[in-house]
């Protein structure tokens, strides 16, 4: 049932599924995997009610393949997975980037490597979400820190994927996926998301892979007079094979990457607090951001000039925002539930500024604010 403009207690995964329904997702393909199962469960119930299609495929590979096929016919499509399933998506993620299919892929992160710990949270797929498929490409990765954001950022992922004709990944984690919080749900008819730009020229003048000023080509639905070829091989603007033409393939790869990287100011979203006078900034995302904010508030209470920076979009990387912090603060601490992943682009962006970058990356249990506060104290004594 649609919750129209009211506050409801929901689980993160449920909020993700409802966000997708609100954003107009009408196709979901999935495969059972913990801790993302509830997303498929809700979609299996909700999609037929709203005229959408749900299919449980034979494996993780097939489910992203089916979402790609559906997206080509004009549907807003989604797939959700975790851990090993995310690894199995990588081939088709690259395909979706190559043929420029808008869709949303949810990864509710769990502990790896391999089967790891199916019911425990981690943030160790941050690099995989950006670089996991072979070859050069770019995608959009969002990181929710609350149940409300499971809803809101799913909507935003749909919008961004459609605007940039790219798969967008919602990189959640087991904590946010399974947490229950109050969510303020908008009336679904008020939720507006973009729809891919369709060709406005006659079929014979249609160039399926000619980017506009931003590098994004128009997209025709399969089954219309616009015949085109979603080509996983290197291809020219008319989608024909260019498997031995470096000039064509270079232009294609640059456009696929730059349509995201060069438009990052439209995509990037960060939240900051106490940054104006902060000496020590904690940069955190996902479930870790909750503890990080708590630590910063406690540090402030103790008279430490601590600040807080949270990227809601992990990729493209918020380079200007991190540079701005590193130009003023003395230190940036990056707590994350992995052996140190996002700290690397942070250090690269901070290079040349004033701030020294400290990693607080470790696998294991969810961060407490005390653990992060302790790191703030340690860092304070050396900077």
């Amino acid at each position, binding site marked *: 049932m649609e919750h129209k403009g009211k506050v409801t207690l929901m689980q993160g995964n449920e909020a993700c599924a409802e966000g997708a329904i609100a954003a107009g997702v009408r196709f979901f393909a999935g495969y059972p995997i913990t801790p993302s199962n509830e997303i498929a469960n809700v979609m299996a119930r909700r999609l037929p009610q709203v005229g959408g299609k749900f299919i449980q495929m034979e494996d993780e590979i*097939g489910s992203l393949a089916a979402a790609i096929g559906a997206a080509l*016919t004009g549907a807003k499509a989604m797939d959700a997975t975790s851990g090993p399933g995310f690894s199995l998506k990588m081939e088709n993620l690259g395909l979706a980037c190559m043929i420029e299919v808008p869709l949303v892929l949810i990864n509710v992160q769990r502990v790896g490597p391999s089967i790891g710990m199916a019911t425990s949270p981690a943030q160790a797929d941050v690099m995989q979400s950006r670089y996991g498929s072979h070859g050069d490409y770019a995608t959009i990765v969002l990181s929710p820190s609350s149940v409300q954001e499971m809803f809101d950022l799913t909507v935003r992922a749909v919008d961004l994927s459609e605007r940039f004709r790219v798969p967008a990944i919602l990189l959640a984690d087991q904590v946010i996926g399974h947490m229950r919080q109050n969510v303020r749900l908008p009336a679904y008819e008020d939720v507006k998301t973009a729809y891919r730009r369709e060709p406005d020229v006659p079929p014979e003048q249609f160039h399926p892979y000619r980017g506009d000023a931003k590098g994004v080509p128009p997209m025709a639905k399969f089954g219309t007079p616009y015949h085109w*070829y*979603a080509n*996983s091989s290197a291809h020219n603007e008319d989608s024909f094979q260019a498997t031995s033409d470096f000039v064509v393939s270079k232009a294609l790869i640059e456009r696929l990457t730059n349509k995201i990287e060069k438009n990052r100011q439209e995509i990037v979203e960060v939240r900051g607090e106490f940054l104006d006078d902060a000496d020590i900034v904690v940069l955190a995302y996902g479930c870790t951001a909750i503890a990080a904010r708590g630590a910063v508030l406690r540090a402030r209470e103790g008279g430490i000039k601590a600040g807080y920076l949270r990227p809601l979009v992990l990729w493209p990387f918020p380079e200007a925002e991190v540079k701005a912090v590193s130009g003023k603060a003395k230190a940036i601490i990056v707590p994350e539930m992995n052996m140190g992943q996002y700290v690397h682009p942070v250090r690269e962006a901070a290079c040349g500024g004033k701030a020294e970058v400290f990693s607080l990356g470790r696998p294991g249990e969810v961060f407490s604010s005390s653990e992060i506060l302790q790191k703030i104290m340690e860092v304070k004594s050396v900077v």
Partner: protein
Amino acid sequence: MSKNASSSLLVDKYFYTHQFPTMWCPGCGNGTVAMATVRGIDRLGLDIDKVIHVAGIGCSSVAHWYTTFTALQSAHGRALPSATGIKLANPELTVVVTMGDGDCIAIGGNHLIHACRRNIDLTAVVYNNFNYGMTGGQVGPTTPLESLTSTTLYGNIEPPVDICKVAEAAGATYVARGAIYYIKELIDLIEKGVRHKGFSLIEVMTPCPTVFGKRNALGSAAHMWKAQKEFTIPVKKARDLTPDQLKGKWPRGVLVDKDLPEFTEEYAKLMARAQKGRAGK
């Protein structure tokens, strides 16, 4: 177009001639399968805008480089799940899938089983050339025992799989085997497959003279084409033979043709139930 539309009319309508010559080797049967597929589709008088061609990767899966259908070249082995998404999202489309033997039943084998089981209205045309031609002639799931390939230099010791039997066992409701030497029959088999409501699979035996033929001393391309007269047999004749007499012979024709509920139609009923607020039957 009519049943006997001329080749040049068909070529103009269905092929991007500026993409010719094709990449297929002289004597390869793939072009014949592609043309038979186009002829089979053409006979149905469909709105060509609504016909979608999905391919995997391999020598067979380049047919769509030349045809004018809207097409998806998927990842290797993933043509069927991609096609499943297309068909489920828009059941009005006619979706024809081309795959090679390796694409279909080795790397894509799991998807084949489940597409058959689901009985979703797709038509799979499987080009069986008994080896991985594009990569230089490696052993494949259909390579005959003892054959020489670039990865079975001392002879193949793995028994081959019968694609049609797998499709039948998995629940495909139309299964046929054709051979390029019998081109008219092949066109009929494909036409029936596309017309059939439910999952259709047409295995087509197509020679690979350049690698498989040469390495196994199977003679010239013409010889390999003619050899299909020896190792295939009409399905009606095959029924009268003992297993011993059938050894080394592949039955040709319609192997399975039955009418069972089709997936996207069942899904439409499910949606109607869900919209009435009932969870199930």
